[in-house]
């Protein structure tokens, strides 16, 4: 992963993505409030609700910082040294995880406008109960929840996205030096808020999408590099076992790599030695290595071929409808995942939805959104289109 001591690229993207999602949610809420109550008649109510939204955000952020700090502290007290004997395996595994996360995130980023749809649906659902408060049996807790929905939604969202970010960063960043975090986190948050704000302002969606395309391409370059590096690390680990030591002890010269696996090797520009300098950044962004192996080159190309197939399938299904064999399977998986997720996060919300038959389509829609969010490479997203059209 190129231990760049200043800027952890993966951390940046994780922060960016999570922050963007949060911002989108908040902006949808604010826009909704403005649309419904901003007209003038009920200024007091409007202000109170806006306050609720911001309060939810703030408290969510605070809670997630507290919990997240604890988690990261726990990660680090475990200590990277615990893993140093198997450092290469560790870096390889983390590389693959990070690469998958970025890949999935990247796909979601391209459809970030759908996030707005998703949250509009959610908001609608939440408010439906207000319209129909006495229809079903419910306790004080539920009434309280509904009263403060404008607080709970941003609070839960911020908390959830924030914790997600913490978990990802904790996992991905364990192999990285702690000094590379702050700047990356800060920039990620800033970029996320900036993009979110542009979306909120309803900025020019075309240029927005171009921006997203470019940043997604960039993301995939990083992910491809990470994937290739992961395989490289596995091979390096095997090589270290063969020579019975740490290959980087021999510097970047002969003996630091397995000649029979080598595709190219230049005795310079080693991103592993001495912080790597510019090559370390080059390595982190594009997966550059001064010593490419058959495995790492194949992995890089394989990654891109998978990306092409994945996007090809998504494109095909967006234009021509569900895929014959893939979709049923994917749908099953996604349903299971959705149920699990609902169980973990949204029990208070989802129970009422499933109670009445009227909300069945809403549930399907939600799974559809979920699909775009988490299963982009597998590419199932028609559900939402079919159900929302």
């Amino acid at each position, binding site marked *: 992963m190129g231990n760049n001591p200043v800027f952890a690229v993966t951390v940046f993207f994780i922060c960016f993505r999570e922050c963007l999602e949060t911002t989108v949610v908040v902006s949808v809420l604010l826009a909704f409030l403005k649309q419904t109550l901003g007209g003038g008649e009920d200024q007091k109510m409007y202000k109170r609700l806006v306050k609720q939204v911001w309060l939810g955000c703030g408290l969510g952020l605070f809670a997630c910082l507290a919990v997240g700090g604890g988690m990261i502290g726990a990660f680090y007290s475990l200590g990277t040294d615990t893993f140093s004997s198997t450092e290469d395996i560790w870096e390889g595994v983390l590389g693959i995880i990070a690469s998958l996360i970025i890949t999935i995130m990247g796909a979601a980023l391209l459809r970030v406008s759908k996030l707005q749809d998703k949250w509009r649906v959610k908001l609608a659902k939440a408010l439906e109960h207000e319209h129909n408060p006495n229809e079903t049996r419910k306790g004080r807790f539920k009434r309280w929840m509904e009263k403060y929905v404008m607080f709970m939604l941003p609070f839960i969202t911020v908390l959830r996205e924030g914790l997600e970010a913490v978990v990802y960063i904790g996992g991905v960043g364990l192999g990285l030096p702690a000094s590379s975090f702050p700047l990356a986190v800060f920039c990620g948050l800033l970029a996320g808020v900036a993009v979110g704000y542009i979306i909120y302002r309803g900025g020019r969606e075309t240029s927005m999408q171009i921006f997203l395309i470019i940043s997604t391409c960039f993301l995939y370059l990083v992910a491809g590099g990470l994937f290739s590096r992961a395989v490289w690390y596995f091979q390096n680990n095997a090589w270290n076992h063969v020579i019975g030591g740490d290959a980087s002890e021999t510097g970047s010269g002969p003996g630091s790599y397995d000649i029979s696996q080598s*595709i190219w090797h230049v005795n310079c520009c080693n991103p592993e030695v001495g912080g790597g300098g510019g090559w370390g950044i080059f390595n982190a962004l594009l997966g550059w290595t001064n010593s490419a192996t058959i495995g790492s080159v194949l992995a890089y190309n394989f990654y891109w071929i998978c990306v092409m197939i994945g996007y090809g399938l998504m494109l095909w299904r967006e234009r021509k409808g569900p895929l014959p064999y893939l979709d049923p399977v994917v749908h099953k998986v996604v349903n299971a995942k959705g149920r699990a997720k609902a169980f973990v996060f949204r029990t208070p919300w989802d129970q009422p939805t499933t109670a009445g038959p009227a909300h069945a389509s809403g549930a399907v829609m939600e799974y559809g959104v979920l699909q775009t969010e988490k299963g982009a490479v597998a590419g199932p997203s028609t559900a939402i289109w079919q159900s929302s059209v």
Partner: protein
Amino acid sequence: MVTSAAGLLVRLVAALCFFQYVQAKTVTYDFNVTWVTANPDGLYDRKVVGINGQWPLPVIEVDKGDQLVVNMHNGLGDKRASIHFHGMFQNGTNEMDGPSMVTQCPVSPGSSITYNFTVNQNGTYWYHCHTDYCYPDGYRQALIVHDKDAYFNDMYDEEYAITMSDWYHEMIEDITFIDKSNPTGAEPIPNAFLFNDTLNSSLSVEPGKTYLLRLINVGAFVAQYFYIEDHTFKIVEIDGVYTDATEASILYISVAQRYSVLVTMKNSTEKNYPIVTVADSQLLDTIPSDLRLNHTNWLEYNKTAAHPQATITVADASDLIPFDDMSLVPHDRMELLPEADLVIDLTVYMENLDNGADYALLNNISYTRPKVPTLFTVMSAGELATNSEVYGDYTHPMVLGHNQVVEIILNNGDGGSHPFHLHGHNFQLINRAPAYGEHFYDYADGDPVAYDPSNHTAFPKYPARRDTFVLPPQGYFVIRFVADNPGVWFFHCHIDWHLQQGLGMTLIEAPLQIQERLTIPQNHYDVCEASGVQSKGNAAGNTVDYLDLSGQNKQVAWLPAGFTAKGIVAMVFSCVSAFLGMAFISVYGASGIKMANKKRKTEKAAAEGSASTDS
């Protein structure tokens, strides 16, 4: 009166010499070489090369002037062999020298070879196998040439021959060494160090007597420091060359080197004194915790007294300051040879080649065996024998003119020390830096220091001579000798691992004189036939055109630097797939714009529709 006595003495000596000359006898050894089992260190039973079912091997002992005949039958069954009589000049009998593919063909299992030569030398030598890796499996022992006329004969009462050796538990062929898994070329670490092929032994001595100890390092890799607690000794011989008796207390004996020292015993029998050998741990890349570097054997004055372990006073072997062999003066007072007619300037390198394994090179050549033993090429090449091309590019051949003064400058581009041995000669030690002593490792950490002919310490007037000389880490040495012994002589590092890595070269000395003087016996041709090695032709085995070397054995190619064709192809493919992938992403992303636009339109239409229904 005095003169007449002296004259009588001279005449007596002359008569004795003549008598001896007439008496020069033929000493014959029949060696049936087979595998036997031995456990010299008490740690591990292993297969070793035995002679006539015995190990330790018999010491060859001859008198100066004797004819030595060794009939060797290779009964190993699975391994080729030969015998090199280390230090023997083999003047006129180059084919009896022993190194496979240099002066003879390897003796394949089931074959026999006869070595037959006159020993016109004196002193301490040894014999060992010189084919592939065969001597570290135990195939080495002392060879002593007694000399009735040695100047120190009346200075000692008895003599002992002492061999020192490193010892491996694994069969050498089973040790992975030249391999990509060992890119640093780390030499295999011995499992033990032997003293007279055993441990904890005693030399029984009598008080007041003087003993001649012949010390021989018959190891394959590790040099030994040698000293005796509370005793000093006088060096009288190094590598068969008598020196003025010189007091010393610590010796550094690299593999293949020999020292003869006179030790006078104390007059008391109260105590036994440790003879201490300390392995040169600087040569070892790692020191396993169970490897004993220091060993104690004893000068046993009194069998019943205690045999105390040596007190080691230094933390590291390199803290011992050994006697500098360059400061010895040869007893025959041979003067420094004049300026050389031929200077051979060499540098030792250790490098990874294209298969990822570490190799040793002299300049840019890693010695690679020819297809025809070089001596046989000399014998069959006719006039072309003076053209070094016929000996191949990778045997590193150098043709020396008859009676030229030859100077070899050997620089060390490597951080380890290398005991270099020249067959067929001993050579004058003209210069070396750093000298033995506390500064010996001074150059090891910086850049290598090369010999500068215009700026060096003064050459000695009577340089010491020997046949194996230690090249300091990243330093240099300079030696001179006269090419007065026609033959094909191997010049190589005597660390057997390094020799296998190619740290050697071939000197073809006076090839036309070789052709005149030498007759290779039929038996040696039979050996070639039995082992399937050509006995005619150039290094590539070409018997028609000696200058056509196509098909010669080559050293492994150089490691490619940077991008090769496959690297460029891989890079291009990676770039293409990355761009194609990004194209897919862009198309998918751009389709999002269309959808968004479409959606907005439908929304607008719907809003308008609902608005109109409202109104």
